[in-house]
C-alpha cells in the first residue's frame, strides 16, 4: 500500500498548493528562496516556480488597479487558483482542477476557508510564519514546519489516493465555525457549576476551559477566534469519535506516506536536522489514558521516565503560550489551557492540576455528562423535517446545519444551485466594504428541478435553505422560511 509516487502524481494534477514569501528571493537565481511550501513536493522546480511566478505576477498586476485587495482568485478553463495573503507578503495559493465528471465544482470561499484554517492552526501551534522566518532566515526551520504540518492536515482530505476538497456537496457546511450543543436550562446550570469548578482547579493561573459533548461545543471561556481554532483541532483529533477510529488503517498507511514525504522535504530545506519538529496534526497520536486524561507523545517524551511532554499552543490574541490538558469522560471532552508562565514547576504543576481536577471536578463531570447524554437527540438531533439548512452566525463564529446524512438526500441539481447562490452571496458580502451588517438580503429561487433554494442574510447572520418537496408558490416557500426563522432562529429572519 502506502502513498506511492504514482498516487501523488495523480493527485498533483488535481491539486497544487504553495506558500511563498514576496520579500525573499528578489534577485535573479535566488527565486527558490521564495518557496516556503509546495505540494506536490516532487514537482520539478521550474514547474513550481512557474506557479509561483504567475501568482506573484498577478498579485502585482492586480495591485495596479486594486491596491487594497490584490488577486483573490483566477478562474481559468480547467483550474481555479485561490489566493490568500496569510501574513503580510506571505501568500498561500491553491490551484485546483475543475471537472464536472469528478464533481470538482468549487465554491471559492469554501476553498479559501481551508487556507485560512491551515494558517490559523499553524499559528496556534507554531506561531506566525514571519516570526519563524526571522528566527532562522535560511528558511529551513519554516519549511520543515510547514511541510509536516500541512501534509498532516491535507491527509484529512485524502480518500484513497485522491484529495477530496470541500466541493458543492458541502454547500450546507461552514468551515471555520463552531457547532454548539443546545442545552436545557437545568443542564446549563450544571455546566456553569462545572466551569466554576474547573476554574478553581486552575487556581490563580488565569487559565481557560473548553467543554465539548461529542463533536459539539458546550462551553468556552476563550475568545471566539481561539475557540474556533481549538474546536476544529479537538473535533479532528481529540473527541471520542476521532479517538475510537484512531487505530484504523487510514492513518497508519498515511503515516507511512508522510514519512516518505517528510524525508523528501529534507532536500528542500537547508537542513531538517537540528530542528525537532512537533507534528500536532499527526494522526492516531492521541489516546485516552487510564486516568481519563488524553495523552500523546507528539510533543516528545521526558527523558528517563517516558512521561509524554504536555502539549503547548499559542493563543491568537494574547500570544500567550499555553499548556493543553484534555480530559475525557464518555462523550464529554474537557480542555484546559494554562499559561506556561504561570506554571513555574512545569510538568510537575500539570500533574498537580490533573490531580486536583480528578478530586474536585470528576463528580460534576459525570453528572454533566449524564445530563447532556440524556437530553441529546443523537446525530440527527438538529434535523428539521422537510428542510435542508445552514444557519451561520458570523459575529459569534457559530453555525448549525442539517445533519450530513440528511443533506446527502438532496439531488445534485439542488446542491449545485445552493452552491451558486452561496457564491453570489459571498461576492455581495465581499463588496459590502466591511459593513456587512447593513446588507439585508433575501433570495428565493425556484430552480430548474423545482426545488426552492433560499438565502437570507441579515445583521451578520446567514441562513441557507433548500426545500425540495415544497409547493410551487413563492408565498408557500416564504412561509416555510418564516416558520423556520420563528422556531429556530428567534425570528432573526422573520419579516415582522
Amino acid at each position, binding site marked *: 500500500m502506502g502513498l506511492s509516487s504514482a498516487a501523488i502524481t495523480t493527485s498533483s494534477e488535481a491539486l497544487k498548493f504553495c506558500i511563498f514569501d*514576496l520579500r525573499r528571493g528578489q534577485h*535573479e537565481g535566488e*527565486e527558490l528562496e521564495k518557496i516556503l511550501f509546495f505540494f506536490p513536493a516532487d514537482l520539478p522546480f*521550474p514547474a513550481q*516556480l*512557474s506557479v509561483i*511566478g*504567475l501568482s*506573484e*505576477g*498577478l498579485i*502585482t*498586476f*492586480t*495591485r*495596479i*488597479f*486594486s*491596491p*487594497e*485587495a*490584490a*488577486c*483573490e*482568485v*483566477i*478562474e*481559468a*478553463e*480547467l*483550474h481555479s487558483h485561490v489566493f490568500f495573503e496569510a501574513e503580510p507578503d506571505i501568500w498561500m495559493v491553491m490551484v485546483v482542477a475543475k471537472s464536472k465528471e469528478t464533481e470538482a*465544482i468549487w465554491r471559492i470561499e469554501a476553498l479559501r476557508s481551508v487556507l485560512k484554517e491551515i494558517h490559523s492552526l499553524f499559528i496556534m501551534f507554531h506561531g506566525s510564519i514571519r516570526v519563524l522566518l526571522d528566527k532562522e532566515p535560511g528558511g529551513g526551520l519554516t519549511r520543515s514546519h510547514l511541510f509536516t504540518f500541512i501534509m498532516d492536515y491535507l491527509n484529512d482530505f485524502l480518500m484513497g489516493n485522491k484529495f477530496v476538497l470541500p466541493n458543492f456537496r458541502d454547500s450546507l457546511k461552514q468551515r471555520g465555525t463552531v457547532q454548539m450543543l443546545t442545552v436545557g436550562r437545568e443542564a446549563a446550570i450544571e455546566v456553569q457549576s462545572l466551569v466554576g469548578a474547573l476554574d478553581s482547579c486552575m487556581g490563580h493561573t488565569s487559565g481557560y476551559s473548553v467543554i465539548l459533548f461529542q463533536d459539539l461545543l458546550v462551553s468556552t471561556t476563550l475568545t471566539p477566534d481561539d475557540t474556533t481554532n481549538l474546536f476544529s483541532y479537538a473535533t479532528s483529533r481529540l473527541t471520542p469519535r476521532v479517538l475510537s477510529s484512531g487505530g484504523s488503517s487510514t492513518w497508519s498507511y498515511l503515516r507511512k506516506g508522510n514519512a516518505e514525504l517528510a524525508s523528501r522535504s529534507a532536500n528542500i530545506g537547508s537542513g531538517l536536522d537540528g530542528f525537532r519538529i512537533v507534528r500536532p496534526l499527526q494522526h492516531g497520536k492521541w489516546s485516552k489514558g487510564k486516568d481519563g486524561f488524553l495523552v500523546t507523545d507528539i510533543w516528545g517524551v521526558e527523558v528517563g521516565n517516558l512521561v509524554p511532554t504536555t502539549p503547548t499552543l499559542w493563543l491568537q490574541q494574547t500570544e500567550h503560550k499555553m499548556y493543553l490538558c484534555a480530559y475525557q469522560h464518555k462523550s464529554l471532552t474537557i480542555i484546559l489551557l494554562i499559561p506556561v508562565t504561570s506554571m513555574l514547576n512545569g510538568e510537575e504543576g500539570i500533574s498537580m492540576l490533573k490531580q486536583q481536577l480528578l478530586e474536585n471536578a470528576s463528580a460534576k463531570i459525570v453528572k454533566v455528562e449524564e445530563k447532556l447524554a440524556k437530553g441529546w437527540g443523537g446525530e440527527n438531533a438538529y434535523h428539521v423535517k422537510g428542510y435542508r439548512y445552514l444557519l451561520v452566525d458570523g459575529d459569534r463564529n457559530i453555525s448549525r446545519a442539517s445533519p450530513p446524512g440528511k443533506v446527502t438526500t438532496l439531488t445534485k*441539481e439542488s446542491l*449545485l*444551485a445552493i452552491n*451558486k*447562490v452561496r457564491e*453570489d452571496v459571498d461576492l*455581495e458580502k*465581499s*463588496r459590502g466594504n466591511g459593513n456587512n451588517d*447593513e*446588507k*439585508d*438580503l*433575501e*433570495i*428565493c*429561487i*425556484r*430552480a*430548474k428541478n*423545482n426545488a426552492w*433554494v433560499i438565502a437570507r442574510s441579515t445583521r451578520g447572520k446567514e441562513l441557507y435553505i433548500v426545500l425540495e418537496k415544497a409547493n410551487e*408558490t*413563492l*408565498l408557500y416557500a*416564504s412561509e416555510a422560511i418564516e416558520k423556520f426563522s420563528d422556531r429556530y432562529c428567534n425570528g432573526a429572519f422573520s419579516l415582522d
Partner: protein
Amino acid sequence: MTSNASSSSFSDEDEESAGQKPKTGSIDYSPDAIENQLPSIALNTSIDEEKVSVADDHHEPVTEIARGSSREIEPERLISSTGESNLSTETGVWRNSSKVEVDGATSSPCSSGYAGEMGTSSGTASTSGADDIQELRNNSSSVGNDGEVLHSAQWVPGKRHVDEDDTCMSWRERKKHFFVLSHSGKPIFSRYGNEHKLAGFSATLQAIISFVKDGGDRIHLIRAGKHQVVFLVKGPIYLVCISCTEEPYESLRGQLELLYGQMVLILTESVSRYFEKNPKFDMTPLLGGTDAVFSSLFHAFSWNPASFLHAYTCLPLPCATRQAAAAILQDVSDSGVIYSMLMCKYKVVSLVGAQKAPLHPDDMLLLANFVMTSESFSPICLPRYNAMAFLHAYVHYFDDDTYLVLLTSNSDAFFHLKDCRIQIENVLVKSNVLSDIQRSLLEGGMRVENLPLYPSTRYGSLFHNEPSDRSQESLQPGIGGPDGLWHFIYRSMNLDQYVSSKFSSPITTHQHQKRLYRAYQKLYASMHDKETGPHKTQFKRDGNYVLLCWVTTDFELYAAFDPLADKGSAIRICNRVCQWVKDVENEIFLLGGGSTFAW
C-alpha cells in the same frame, strides 16, 4: 484626485473614475516590474520587438474594402446628431471647458513623472468630476426622461482621456477598461488612454494570457477586491475588460463578445488572416475613425438591456402605423435588399428581410450602434449572419432619431437603394408614419402608473387617452406604479424582443437607472447560470429593491419594486403586467404572421 476637477461635459458614467485612491507602497506596480516577476513565465514574446509600428502596409487591402465606397455618396450623406461634424464642434466645447479644468484643478490626473504632459493632458477630453456629473444629470432628468433609455442626448460618443497611460493614477482609477490586443501583444484598442503609450501594458496582458495558455489552460477571470479582469480570446485577437462595476462575470464576458462583434462588423473576421501572415500585423489603422462607434457601444453596456438580454425592442406604435411601414419596406425588399429596417434610435419600427434567416438581435444592436455613430453608406459585416463577408448598409436619417437601413450584398446598389428610400419616404410621409413615430417617442410606451386593473373588458391600447380608469392605489404621483412597482422588463422568447417600462419616479436619476440596470443584469446572470440554470422563479430583496423574475418557455419577466413591497402583492402585480403586455402586444412588438416576415 480627479474628483474635484470641474467640467461641464458629460463623460460616460461614473465608470470613468473609481474614486479609489491607490496607495503607492513599496511595491513597484509598473508593467515592467510585473514582467520581471514572470521570469520563468517564458515570456515567449520579447516585448522589445513589439514597438508599435504605424506604418505597416499589410492593412491596405482591407482599408480599401472598408472605406472604398464611402466616398461616392458624399452629397447624400446625412449626418446624425451624433455624427462626426457635431462631434468636432462638441470637442471644441470640451477643449474650452477642460482648460478651465486644468487651471482650476489642484492636482493633475497624472501622478506619474510625465511632467511635460501635465498641462496638456486635456487634449480632446476632460476629466470629469463625479459630483458635477451627478448634479447635471439630476437637472436634466427632471426636464423630461426618455424612459426606457438612460438619457443619451447629453452623452456624446468619442474617446476620452486619450493622453493617459498606465502610469497615470486617473487611468488606473477608471471603473471599466476595455482593451483589444493582438496575440503578439500589440495594442489594437483601449477605451481610455493612448494605445501607443500602452504598449508595455498590453504586452503584460499578453504575457498573462499566453503564460496560462502555455500551461495548457485558458484564463477567464481574475478577481481582486472589487476588480475583475475578464479575458476573451478570439483567434489572434485578445480582448480584456478590467472593471470594478460589480457586474457579473457573465455580463462582462458578453460585453467583450459584443466588442469583438463590433470590430467584426467593421472589418469582418477575415482580418485574422492577416495575423496568420504576419504576427506583428498592426490592426489599429483599420479601426481609424471608429472611436465613436466603440464609445457608444460601451455606453450601451450601461443602459441598453439588449446587450445582455440578446433581444431587441420596438418603438410602441399603433398597429396600423406599423403595418403601413412594413408594407412599404416589403415592397422594396425583393429588389436585392437583404434586410430593410426602419429604426428610431435603438428601437425597431419595422423590419423586413428577404431571407428566411432572421436578423440576430446582437447584430441589430451592433448595426444600430454603428449606424448611429458613423457614416451613411458603409460596408459592414454582421457577425452572427456571416462573420467573413461584407454587406453594404445604406442609411438615411428622416429626422434626428428615425432612420432607414437597407442592407444589400451588392456594392453597386447605391443608386437603386436611394430610389428605394425615396419610394419609402413618400409612403411614410403620406401615411403619417413619421409623425406617429415622433408622437410615440414623446408619449408612447408603458408606464407603470398606467398598469390597468383587471379584469378589464376595455380594449387595451397605449395610444388612447384613458382619463380615469385607474384604481386609487396607483394615483399618487411620483411613487411609481401600484403596490410599489417601479419598473419592469418583459422579454418574449419566441419573438426575441423585449419591452421595458418607462422610468418613473423614484427611478429618475442617472444613478438610479444605472443601479437598476446593473441589478437586472445580475438577476439575469443568476437566473441563467451555466451549470444550474435556467431557474424558474427568483425573488430577491436587498436594500435597494425587491426584484421578481419569472422565466417560462414563452416569456421572461423582470420586475423591480420598492424594497418594502409585499411579496403577495408583488406577485399579483406581476400577473397584471403580463396580462397588460399581452393586451397591447401588437403595439409594442413586431409580430409575425402575414406575408411580411416569419418570426
